[in-house]
């Protein structure tokens, strides 16, 4: 667990050490749908760029304060020269703020190779699969141009198998979590998932296998009083102190749809057939696995997914972690709120910030929520 925590705590430090050790290239990427398998097959280290724990400093000069903490932190890290370890950065267009951050970083790092990866956001049109395949093919070609070597299908298949294995192992931890007796708390789960976004996948998988053996043989954790689901945070990891505070209020987190959680590992890539078609399929399946408010799919509802997850996990309520100024989340949240109120499932909205969070006040709100859930249960 210490090695997971170390990589989660200092992802760029991990990348630097890996680069010095292997002499290979590092590609940093914006979150969401980056196919790490492709970059891995191209013999590079793919890493999802992480929000820094440091306050925003020089970045204030490039992005307005009403951009989300993730984008402001990305730009701040770029301005301060923290991204020197990256040989390329892959941007996505999941929201307007990510696009703004991409422009600001591009200006700051003119010598860093930029790869722009665009995916169709309408998920249930007849042409969605085809257009997605085009995007993944273009990305493959660009990566080949960047590394100067072709990516063979066999290598891509091997990377897909490795990534699937890694995801599958983390899903086993999530299965244990549903029982409410998993020996890993929310911060440790975050370390596992976050480090998976950063570390060499083979190394991470090896450590994960050892961890799972250890966890499966460990005594069950003492159950806390209230079982809750955590939802939200599509790009950045919730701050560990927030997760700790929630659990200190007597909560057992039995499931989540966080990006630094189940959302990241929910869906596997088909291992048979054309790998590009497989990646396109994975992209489509991810949105039915755990719906994303940045995608449009008429036959998929995030709120219905959440209610179903809560039933399966036997959760008694949900805490929504909304990153301040996250437009897709703000846009979709009223539907979730309405659906939960209609279903009579208690939920609490917590708006999180990059800095200046009043934890004591938040704790009072979470404690009150726990008291409400308990009273409803008793009534």
């Amino acid at each position, binding site marked *: 667990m210490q090695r997971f925590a170390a990589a989660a705590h200092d992802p760029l430090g991990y990348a630097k050490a890996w680069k010095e050790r292997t002499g290979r290239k590092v590609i940093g990427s914006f979150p969401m749908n980056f196919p790490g398998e492709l970059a891995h097959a191209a013999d590079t280290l793919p890493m999802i760029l992480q929000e820094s724990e440091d306050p925003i400093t020089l970045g204030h000069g490039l992005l307005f304060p009403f951009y989300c903490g993730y984008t402001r932190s990305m730009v701040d890290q770029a301005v301060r020269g923290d991204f020197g370890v990256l040989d390329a950065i892959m941007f996505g267009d999941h929201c307007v703020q990510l696009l703004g951050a991409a422009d600001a970083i591009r200006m700051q790092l003119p010598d860093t190779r930029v790869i722009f990866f665009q995916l169709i956001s309408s998920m249930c049109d007849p042409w969605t699969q085809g257009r997605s395949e085009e995007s993944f093919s273009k990305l493959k070609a660009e990566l080949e141009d960047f590394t100067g070597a072709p990516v063979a299908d066999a290598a891509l298949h091997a990377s897909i198998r490795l990534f699937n294995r890694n995801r599958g192992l983390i899903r086993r931890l999530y299965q244990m979590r549903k029982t409410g007796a998993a020996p890993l708390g929310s911060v440790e789960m975050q370390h596992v998932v976050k480090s998976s976004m950063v570390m060499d996948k083979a190394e991470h998988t090896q450590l994960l296998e050892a961890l799972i053996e250890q966890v499966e043989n460990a005594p069950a954790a003492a159950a806390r009083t209230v079982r809750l689901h955590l939802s939200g945070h599509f790009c950045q990891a919730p701050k560990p102190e927030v997760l700790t505070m929630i659990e200190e209020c007597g909560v057992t987190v039995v499931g989540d749809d966080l990006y630094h959680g189940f959302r990241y590992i929910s869906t596997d890539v088909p291992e048979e057939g054309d790998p590009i078609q497989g990646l396109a399929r994975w992209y489509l399946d991810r949105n039915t696995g755990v719906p994303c408010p940045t995608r449009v799919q008429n036959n998929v509802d995030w709120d219905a997914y959440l209610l179903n997850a809560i039933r399966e996990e036997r959760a008694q309520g949900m805490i929504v972690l909304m990153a301040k100024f996250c437009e897709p989340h703000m846009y979709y949240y009223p539907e979730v709120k309405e659906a939960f109120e209609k279903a009579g499932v208690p939920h609490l909205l917590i708006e999180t910030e990059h800095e200046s969070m*009043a934890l*004591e006040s*938040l704790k009072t*709100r979470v404690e*009150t929520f726990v*008291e409400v859930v308990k*009273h409803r249960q008793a009534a």
Partner: protein
Amino acid sequence: MKQHVMGVDFGSTTAKTVILNLAGNIVAHSVAHMGAVSGNGVKHSMKEALDLAGLAQSDIGRTVSTGYGRRMLDEADRNYTEITCHARGAVAMVPDARLVIDIGGQDSKVISVDSNGLVAQFAMNDRCAAGTGKFLEVLARAMEIELEEMGAVALQAAQKLKISSMCATFAETEVISLLAEGHSKPDVLGAVHKAIATRTLGLVGRVGKKGPVVMTGGVARNPAAVHYIQEELQMPLVLPQSPQIAGALGAALIGLDDYRAENRHLLISDQEDMAHEEQMAADKACIPGCRGVPEFAVDPREKQPVAGKAKAHASTESHA
């Protein structure tokens, strides 16, 4: 079984204590200023309430704490958040209340409650002291006026001014500027209270406007705050007689629930008590050799128990 429970609201500027008997009636209550060492204020409040009730801490069956210092009280058996306790206390004071506005020293909250006094939804200030008693305190100091006098002076406002910042420090600058421009103290104070009311309406909007609305907390004693909040809400506020003790009362009531539930086997109603005694008398009358004078027969000359008052059995009887 002990006959009293206690609720303590360990607030930021005042400590409140309520002592209840097992029927849920207030036996004593106390409000004390915290002073520099908050623990002393709480001890003072608890001692005062105990003295008023003629009790010692050892006579208290259950103590529940609330407020920002709720976890620091050694005497507390349990603690609950001020939101849960204010909701419970406010509904006990005003049984048909559906919305509670509580403005205390360092936080303000709006709570929608169901008919059982349970929290349905809530919103509270989560960033600074905007719209709280502390906001008023800072501005009272800036305007060189006693906190207790602010409300009455603000009600004399003739001109509508605006304080745009809700940060106490920035608002202080605005207040000083307005005074320097020659505006009167009542007008400036009117603007200060209007700013609090607007902020409160924002919290109401997050929870949903509904009535009847009860206002608790120390600021409920400020007539200008009440006036401007009513104006913003366009609804009347119901003011309990002692709005400051709502949280402590709620804590005591929750403690009473727990204590009664735990000692249910020791508690019976008056009706059950009478029926039990009559039955025992009848049983005794049938014992061979009995002289026909049941030991436990009810003597009609005896004073009957007060309706609604819970009674404890003698311990030998309860274990029989």
